[in-house]
C-alpha cells in the first residue's frame, strides 16, 4: 500500500515510540502498576473483611464506587458522541480529535464497569445477571446497554484503525515479526483500493450514525438507575438529558486534558494545534451553559415549589456546611472559563 505524504510524515514521527519501549514509558508503567497494587490491597481488605471497610452504610449504599462508574461511563459516551459528530460533519480540523475521543471511549467503558464489580456485595454471583435476568430492572437495561455500547465502540475504533494497521503492516519497522504479523492480521487484507476505501467510509459513517443515538440512549439509561427510584432529588424527569449533557461536558474537559498530554509526550504539536484547544474550549463553554441551565432549573423548580421532601434535599445541599457541593458546583461551572475564555493566555506560550 502506498503511503501519502501525510501518512509518511506521521509514521516517521511515530516510529521511535512504536519501535521501543522507552525508559520514560517504563517509569510511567511501573508508577501506574504500583497504584493498581495499592488498589489490589484495598480489594483484598474488602473481600476478607466485608464491604464494611468501604465506610458505606445502609443510608449510603453506593458511594464513591458509583460516582466513579458514572464518571468513566459518562466520559465514554461523550467520546463516542464527539467522535461521531466530528466524523459526520467532516470538519478538517476534527480528525486528530476523533481518534483520541475513540480511545477515550474504549478505555473508560472498560474502566467504568470495574467499579460496579467492586461495589457489588456478591461479586462471585455476578453471573446471576445473565442466568436470571429481569428485564423490568433498570440495572438489566444498563447491563444490556453497556455491553451493546462496548461492542459498538470497539467496532467504531477498529474501523478507524484499519488503515493504520495496514500502514504498520507494510512499513519497514524495527519490531519483532509477531507484531508485524499481528498488524497484518488486524489489517484484514486492507490494501487501500477504491472499493475498499468506499466500503470503509460507508461503514464508518454507519457506525457514527449508530453510535450517536446509542450513546444518548445508554447515557439516559444510566441516569434512570437514579431517576426511576422514588428518592427525592433523584426522582426527576430531567435526569436523562441532564446526564447526557453532564457526560458531554466532562468528556470534553477530559479530551482537552488528554490532548494536552499527548501533545507533550508524543510531540504532536502539528496535530493538536492551538486551534483545537480554542474550538473545544468553545464547545465546553456551550456545554457549561447548558449544564448550568439544567442545574438551575432542577433546583430552582424544587426550591420554588418547596414540597416537603424536595425542600429537605435543597436544605441539605445548600447548607453552608456542605463544602463538597459548594466546591463542586461553582468550580464545575467555572472551569470552562480557564479553557475557553482565556485560550491565548493558556496555550499561546506552548509551542
Amino acid at each position, binding site marked *: 500500500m502506498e503511503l501519502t505524504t501525510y501518512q509518511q510524515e506521521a509514521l516517521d514521527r511515530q516510529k521511535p515510540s512504536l519501535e521501543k519501549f522507552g525508559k520514560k514509558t517504563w517509569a510511567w508503567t511501573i508508577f501506574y502498576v504500583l497504584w493498581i497494587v495499592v488498589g489490589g490491597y484495598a480489594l483484598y481488605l474488602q473481600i476478607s*473483611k*466485608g*464491604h*464494611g471497610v468501604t465506610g*458505606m*452504610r*445502609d*443510608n449510603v*449504599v*453506593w458511594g464513591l464506587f458509583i460516582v466513579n462508574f458514572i464518571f468513566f461511563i459518562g466520559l465514554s459516551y461523550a467520546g463516542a458522541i464527539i467522535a461521531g459528530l466530528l466524523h459526520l460533519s467532516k470538519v478538517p480540523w476534527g480528525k486528530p480529535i476523533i481518534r483520541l475521543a475513540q480511545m477515550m471511549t474504549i478505555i473508560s467503558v472498560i474502566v467504568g464497569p470495574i467499579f460496579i464489580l467492586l*461495589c*457489588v*456485595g*456478591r461479586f462471585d*454471583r*455476578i453471573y*446471576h*445477571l445473565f*442466568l*436470571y*435476568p*429481569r428485564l*423490568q*430492572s*433498570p*440495572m*438489566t437495561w444498563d*447491563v444490556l446497554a453497556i455491553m451493546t455500547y462496548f461492542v459498538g465502540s470497539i467496532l467504531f475504533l477498529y474501523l478507524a484503525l484499519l488503515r493504520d494497521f495496514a500502514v504498520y503492516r507494510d512499513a519497514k519497522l524495527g519490531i519483532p515479526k509477531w507484531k508485524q504479523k499481528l498488524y497484518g492480521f488486524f489489517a484484514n487484507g486492507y490494501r487501500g483500493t477504491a472499493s475498499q476505501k468506499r466500503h470503509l467510509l460507508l461503514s464508518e459513517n454507519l457506525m457514527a450514525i449508530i453510535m450517536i443515538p446509542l450513546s444518548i440512549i445508554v447515557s439516559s439509561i444510566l441516569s434512570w*438507575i*437514579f431517576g*426511576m*427510584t*422514588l*428518592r427525592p432529588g433523584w426522582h426527576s424527569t430531567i435526569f436523562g438529558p441532564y446526564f447526557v449533557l453532564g457526560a458531554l461536558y466532562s468528556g470534553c474537559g477530559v479530551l482537552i486534558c488528554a490532548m494536552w498530554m499527548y501533545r507533550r509526550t508524543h510531540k504532536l504539536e502539528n496535530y493538536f494545534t492551538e486551534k483545537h484547544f480554542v474550538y473545544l474550549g468553545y464547545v465546553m463553554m456551550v456545554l457549561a451553559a447548558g449544564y448550568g441551565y439544567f442545574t438551575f432549573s432542577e433546583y430552582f423548580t424544587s426550591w420554588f415549589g418547596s414540597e416537603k421532601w424536595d425542600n429537605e434535599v435543597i436544605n441539605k445541599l445548600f447548607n453552608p456546611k456542605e463544602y463538597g457541593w459548594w466546591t463542586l458546583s461553582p468550580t464545575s461551572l467555572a472551569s470552562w472559563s480557564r479553557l475557553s475564555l482565556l485560550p491565548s493566555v493558556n496555550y499561546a506560550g506552548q509551542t
Partner: protein
Amino acid sequence: MKQEEINDKGRRDFLKTAAVAAVAATACGSLACSCTSKKPTTGEKIKLLSPEGEIVEVDSAYLNHQEHMAIVSKLEARQGIAGKKFVMVVDLSRCKNARKCITACQKWHYRPEETEWLTVKLLKDSEKGAPYWFPKQCFHCDNPPCVKVCPVDATFKRQDGLVLIDNERCIGCKFCMAACPYSTRVFNWNDPVIPAEIEEQQYSAETGIPAKVGTVEKCDFCPDRSREGLLPPCVDACPNGVFYFGDENEDTVTNGEETISFTQLIKDRSGYRFMEELGTKPRVYYLPPKDRQFPVERGYENLPDTLKARFKDIMEPEKSKS
C-alpha cells in the same frame, strides 16, 4: 402448639416435623391419602401441622425423619401461601417505644442488636404537631419499588402479599435499598455472626436464616410462623398490643388478645397508609395516634444514651441545637 416450645431447641425439632408434613403432602397430594397406603402401621399416632394449617394425626410408620430440610421448597417460598393476603395494622395510640418488638424480632431471626429489621421512629408531622412513636417495618407493598428494580429476581412478590428476599440469589447490588422509599432494607456489610444452633440450618427465603455477607435482608412478616399458625414475634412481644396481624381475605386481624374485623378497624379508627402519595400501596396500615395511652416521653426517658441520640432533635430541640 404453645409458644415456649417454639423457642430455641424446640424450634429445630418443630421444623423437622413440619418438613416431614410438607413432604408427605406434596408426595401424595394430601395427608389422608398417605395414611391409606399399604404399609404396616405401628399404631403410634403423631400430630402434625398440614400446609393448610390444620393439625392432623399420622401414623409414625409413614414418617421419615430428614435432617436439615427447609420448611418449604424454593418454589413454594417464592409462590407463597395460597389463599392468604397478609396485612398488618399498627395502632399508634398504644406505642410507647418499649422496643420489645425489636428485641423479639432480633431474637427470632438471630440478628445482632444493631440490625433492626423493625425499628421505632419518632415522628412529628408539623411544627406544632405532637410527636408520636412510629414502629416501621417492611410494608410489603403491593406495588413494590424494590421488586421492580431487582436485576436478578432475588426479591419477589408472592401471592400472599409478602415481599421476600432470596439471599442465595442476591448479588448485593443494593439497588433495592436505593429504590425503597422507606429505607427498610439492611445490608450485611460484614460477615454476620451465625450462632451454632442455626449454622447447619438450610436456608429458606421464608426464614432468612442463616444470613449471608454481601446480601440484602429485611422484615419478612415471618411466613414460617404463619405456616405454623403463629403470629410474628413482634406482635406477640408487644406489651401494649400495638400490632394487629392477619389476613385480608378473611378480613380479620389480631394482636394476640383481641381479634377484630380488619375493615371495621380501619373504618372506625381512620386507618391510613404511610406515604400513600408514593403509590406503593403498602400492606401495613396505621391507626392515628389519637387518645393516646402513654405520654410520648415514656418512650424516651429510660432509653440508653445511644438510642436517645436518635430522637434528641425532636425531644430536646434546645439541647440538640447547641
